[in-house]
């Protein structure tokens, strides 16, 4: 009866397994990925929240947090063509804001969009580069532990910089495991030393774009 009804409704015929028959043998279809199922990271050895109710930190709090953490002025952050603030104008909507006056957007989006990570990356990178530029040019404020004239970053200086960034950007001390992860940024994929300037930008960017930065 079910098959008759489906046929009458123009539905595709079901395979014996109940799946829609694509017309191609299963062994011909290459999914492009290995068969092993990636189970993801193992669960932490402690209780975790079961509520799954994180809030999205919107554009103004994101901006204020970057300005305070990196001791910057608003003008230091990303500006399109030097004219349009990335946060107030160019990326306002994907960063969680709304523009009611000229665009009639009376409410912000309820959840991040596909371009939110891109916009976040751009804003965070601009902030980190501005901070590093200012630290290189003058009295260092955030990266005082780094010798920007050196060819490489020593481990102790890297750990100090990472610790400072964690406290500034996340408001907490990073775990030893996190410090170790970020310290890996002192070496590039080929095993060569990364310059102190690049390390400063990259470590700042990596911490400033953690999910913890934008969800609370």
């Amino acid at each position, binding site marked *: *009866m079910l098959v008759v*009804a489906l046929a009458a409704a123009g539905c595709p015929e079901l395979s014996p397994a109940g799946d829609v028959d694509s017309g191609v043998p299963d062994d011909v279809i290459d999914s492009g990925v290995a068969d092993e199922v990636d189970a993801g990271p193992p669960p932490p050895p402690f209780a975790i929240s079961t509520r799954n109710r994180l809030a999205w930190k919107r554009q103004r709090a994101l901006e204020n947090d970057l300005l305070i953490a990196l001791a910057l002025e608003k003008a230091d952050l990303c500006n399109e063509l030097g004219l349009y603030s990335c946060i107030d104008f160019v990326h306002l909507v994907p960063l969680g804001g709304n523009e009611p006056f000229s665009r009639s957007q009376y409410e912000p989006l309820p959840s991040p969009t596909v371009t939110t990570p891109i916009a976040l990356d751009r804003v965070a990178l601009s902030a980190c580069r501005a901070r590093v530029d200012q630290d290189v040019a003058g009295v260092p404020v955030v990266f005082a532990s780094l010798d920007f004239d050196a060819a490489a970053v020593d481990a102790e200086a890297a750990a100090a910089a990472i610790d400072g960034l964690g406290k500034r950007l996340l408001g*907490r*001390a990073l775990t030893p495991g996190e410090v170790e992860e970020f310290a890996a940024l002192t070496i590039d994929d080929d095993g060569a030393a990364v310059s102190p300037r690049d390390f400063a930008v990259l470590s700042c960017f990596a911490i400033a774009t953690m999910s913890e930065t934008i969800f609370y």
Partner: protein
Amino acid sequence: MRLLSVLVVVTATGVLPSALFAPAALAKPVGPRLACAHYPDAPMCRGAVVACTQCHTAPPELNSYGSDVFAALEAGNLVYEDDLGTALLNVEGDDSDGDGLTNLEEILLGTRPGDASSFFSAPAPPSGAPNPGFDVGTYDEAFAFRRLLIDYCGRSPTFEEREAFAAAIDQRALRHAALDACLTSSYWTGEGLPRLADKRIRPLQAINIDGVIPLADYGWDYRLFVHALTGDRDARDLLLATYHIDAAGLVVEGVITGDGDDQVGGQPALVDKRAGMITTQWFLMVHTMFSELPRTTAAQAYRAYLGQDIARSEGLLPVEGEPKDIDDKGVDDQETCIYCHATLDPLSYAFAHYNGIGDSGGIGAYNANRPSWQPSEVEAVLLDVPLGDTAAAGVTQWAQIAANSPQFRQNLASMFLTHALGRAPLPDELDDLQALAEGFDDVDDHRAVRLLHRLIDTNAFGVP
């Protein structure tokens, strides 16, 4: 599966099930009121009457739950107006939308029994060793501290602030002190609250005082909104204020003159005809425009300050004998228009005495003689309460009833809790919402600031 079943029946019998193609006469504007009489304590009836979408996809078409209720009426040979409660009772154990929850479970949870995408299962309690970062599953002071600073100060706490908070003996007191500071911050008064006002004011720069076609100044609206919801002020002034706030933040009493014959940029409504946000020049200009019976104005007031969106079939409390179609727009069609206009038109009559665009006396001015009909031809009604002589009183009585209604406090509590959580409250957070709304009158003495202090103590806010 449900569609498949229907197809099977069609194929086998050649007869269309009546429940799927219910006749238009089945949609009953009195249904929401009857349903809430049967389930007065259900979330869907708290500070509201249930939306028509409880039983309909769009009236008069029924959803799966509505179809089952209709079938129960038919099966029991029941009369809709008299026996709807019995029919509702008879389908309580069913799972009309097939989402795994019975209809009664969904009604009690606040999800929709005719919508398979609307369901809820409470999260399991966290288990395992203590979490080193959060007090998961219980109120977490540090989590709430961070959340309130982001929500109301527009920034996260610094490392030093977190350390000081962690070391504080009375963290709750410190948290409330932080909230007090945030609620007077430039972020909250200059951005946080104005963004909550946007959809209530609906600004449009092109016709603002500094726009290409200046017609009014919504700056007055934003300032009054912020003023009423900050400090030790009665939030009901959103609807009851007879004053305005100037650009310097000072209270201005009396008529405020604007430019030219239209009084552009002023507040020409007489003081005793003012009703806060719903009689500002901007509100009346942008919603009334050229309408003799300003339904859009009334609908926006109902939506923005009572949380009842008639366009979404919410808040329908039809008045007998309505719609009269007093302005001859053809809204008295009994098959279609009546579902909304029996509620909307009586809401709108009071607003007809205020100028829109182009009336003499200035945009937004009170004008008792504006509508072409006689006052005795219509009776304004809000929330089942007749409003009396609106030609003499304007919308002041409308505003009094609205500002003291369960809908007003529910809407205010919902606005703030939704903002704080970044989403609408979930079923296991509705008790918190209800407590916030119910305490607004007596506990908060109508102060929004006090409501926010209670809000940050709720589990909805502080449990990670």
